[in-house]
């Protein structure tokens, strides 16, 4: 597994690494295919692709946390709790009903947003205090569900 923190030369952690923007620009100026002699362009393109990807990952709180946990060996097969799965189905049903009846979706979205923020805060708590990383990975896996739910609500809101 490629260490994207190392690629950008920033310390591993839950929070956005300080100086990441500066590092990205500094490395871009060195690596970008526009900035190297023609013979090195193919190689530079590969490096720049990895750099762009690393930067995108580390600038996003959820992706960054996922990557951090992956590097610590917690990734892939995460067992979601049955209660959570049931909750996702209920939430979704509620959303579908609200959509079908034309009810405003803001309240539903707000409650999911709150759950998302709380969950991410819990992950932060665990990670920064060197707690149970397996639990953190399970909590983090929930973020995808929240993101998907909110995408759907925002898709609807964008039309208005």
């Amino acid at each position, binding site marked *: 597994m490629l260490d994207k923190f190392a690629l950008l030369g920033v310390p591993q952690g839950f929070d956005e690494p300080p100086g990441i*923007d*500066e590092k990205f*620009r500094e490395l*871009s*100026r060195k690596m*970008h*295919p*526009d*900035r190297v002699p023609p013979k090195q362009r193919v190689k530079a*393109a590969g490096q*720049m*692709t990895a750099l*762009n*990807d690393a*930067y*995108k*990952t580390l600038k996003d709180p959820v*992706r960054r946390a*996922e990557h951090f946990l992956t590097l610590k060996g917690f990734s892939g097969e995460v067992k*979601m709790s049955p209660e959570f*799965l049931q909750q*996702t*189905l209920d939430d979704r049903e509620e959303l579908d009903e609200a959509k*079908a009846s034309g009810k405003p979706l803001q309240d539903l979205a707000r409650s999911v947003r709150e759950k998302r923020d709380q969950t991410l805060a819990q992950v932060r708590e665990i990670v920064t205090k060197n707690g149970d990383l397996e639990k953190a990975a399970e909590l983090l*896996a929930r973020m*995808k*569900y929240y*993101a*998907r739910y909110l995408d759907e609500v925002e*898709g*609807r809101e*964008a*039309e208005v």
Partner: protein
Amino acid sequence: MPALFQISEPGASHAKEACTTAAVGIDLGTTNSLVGIVLGDGKPRALAVDEGSTLLPSVVHYGEGGGPGSVVVGRAARRLAADFPRDTIVSVKRFMGRSSADPETKRLSPYRFAEGASGVVRFVVDGGRIVNPVEVSAEILRALRTRAEERLGIKVHQAVITVPAYFDDAQRQATKEAGRLAGLEVLRLLNEPTAAALAYGLDKRSRGMFAVYDLGGGTFDISILQLQEGVFEVKAVGGDSALGGDDFDRALAEILLQGREHTPRLVREAIDAAKQAKEELTRAEVTEAFGKRVTRPQLEEAIRPLIEKTGLAVRRALKDVGQKVDGVILVGGSTRVPAVRRYVAELFGMEPLADIDPDEVVALGAAVQANLLTAESPQHDVLLLDVAPLSLGLETMGGLVEKLILRNTTIPANATQEFTTFADAQTGMDIHVVQGERELVKDCRSLAKFTLSGIPPLPAGFARVAVTFQVDADGILSVTAKEQLTGVSQSITVKPSHGLTDEEIERMLLASIEHAEEDVQARLLIDNRVEAQRIVKAVEKQVENNGDLLEPHEREEIENAVADLKGAVAGSDHHKIKSEIERLDKVSADFAKRVMDRGIERALKGHAVDEFDKGELSPHAQKAYSALQDTEDPA
């Protein structure tokens, strides 16, 4: 450039060279083109190149009007356009990098096109002479070069030429080729919004998020760039290619024509009068046009809906960026209209920067870049990090699009997604690459299709095919599909040789907003259908294999639910399909549990574990499982 006024020392040939040549910046525009240069005082200026104006109309006339075999460029050519519409090429930029087979090509113009297999647009002009868009553009560039040389009294050999941020590789290559044909070494192709930012001196010293609001004669572009330590990062691009000052003229002409005949001649006169009135009303409150008194509020009322259309693209770009901007730069002649400036100020919550002539700003920025590139210390050079203007994806089950690379991703970029087979013993997989924001394949642009064959025959869902998209720094996409077990792979490079034009990109972006709800409905229907078919298959398979676990009345109940679900799938009501899925789920829940228990029992007895696959979970559990699977990160 500073070298211009250096005094050459005798015998110092490089100094002499520097003294007699110059690098310029060129804005090769759709309607007008300009040339700029940085002089000894370090300030860029646009050169007067056409009848005292800095604007050279991008019009090229071949032949008769100017004498046999001759080529006329600029205002003189524009005057000949009415009498020689087929020998006078207007707005050639729209044809750059386009295919002659493109239906848009024919729609655009009154021109005669040469037949040929080359695939490139070729115009037939002046009694049979054939020219292509690169050659026509080269005439414009040559006119700019020679007229600049006359003004400066020195040779012009090098240039930075600007292109729209959306230009694809083929269009960029064509522009570069035109420069070469015109006797210019093209130092760099510079994106127009970046050039505008450079003109405002947003270089190493500046930092922040800047919006470039570019409203020209016929197009609107919005770009949001982040500038820090000499690196320009394009954060979002958008626009509307069928919106500009020409629309303002038509809106005002409608008012002028009220109560009068609409003959083609009168309409043309009204549009010309409207254009002039519009320009006068940027300074005056009242003017006279077409024998009518026209006030600024009248004009503003007429164009208000048009101006507000730009807000859609701006808000979308701002949403993509998710940050406030620190400055707004105005580009394009139409941003002179006071109502446009007010609207921009309102939209962004700040007064836009408009100290530099919006017609000249792009050429001036190009001149700054030309100066930087030819200066002694190249570290002043700025770096531009560009983005993919539209999402890139693949067709999946039911004609849906799975996006791999999202709009506004910084390039070069790559993404990999795993796909599996839908049928048992499936040995081939069709890979269909599409571009666009819509949910359905038929609403996106098809870029390429190929087949990965040689997949080992396995039960449905067992083969693993990894599809990788790679977009290079020029925006060219390569796609590779690889079956993970055998390593068999297939790849293709999608060369946008007749790539998307601004118009197509805009149309597609706008359509994705307009059709968002429609898409959601269509997607739900297809999702539910695919889901239903999968569940029906799974249930039927289990009834066949483990039917002995069922009481006759249970079997009947399940079979009825299956039949009803099949009926619902044939219809187009996704709610109905969903409720039938739920019913089947309910009536088969006990059965599923029994099958699962048997599976576990067998597994414990040492049977192959893969007899117990997720096909034996209850449909409801399967659904939760697949909902989570679907959200797996493609990376």
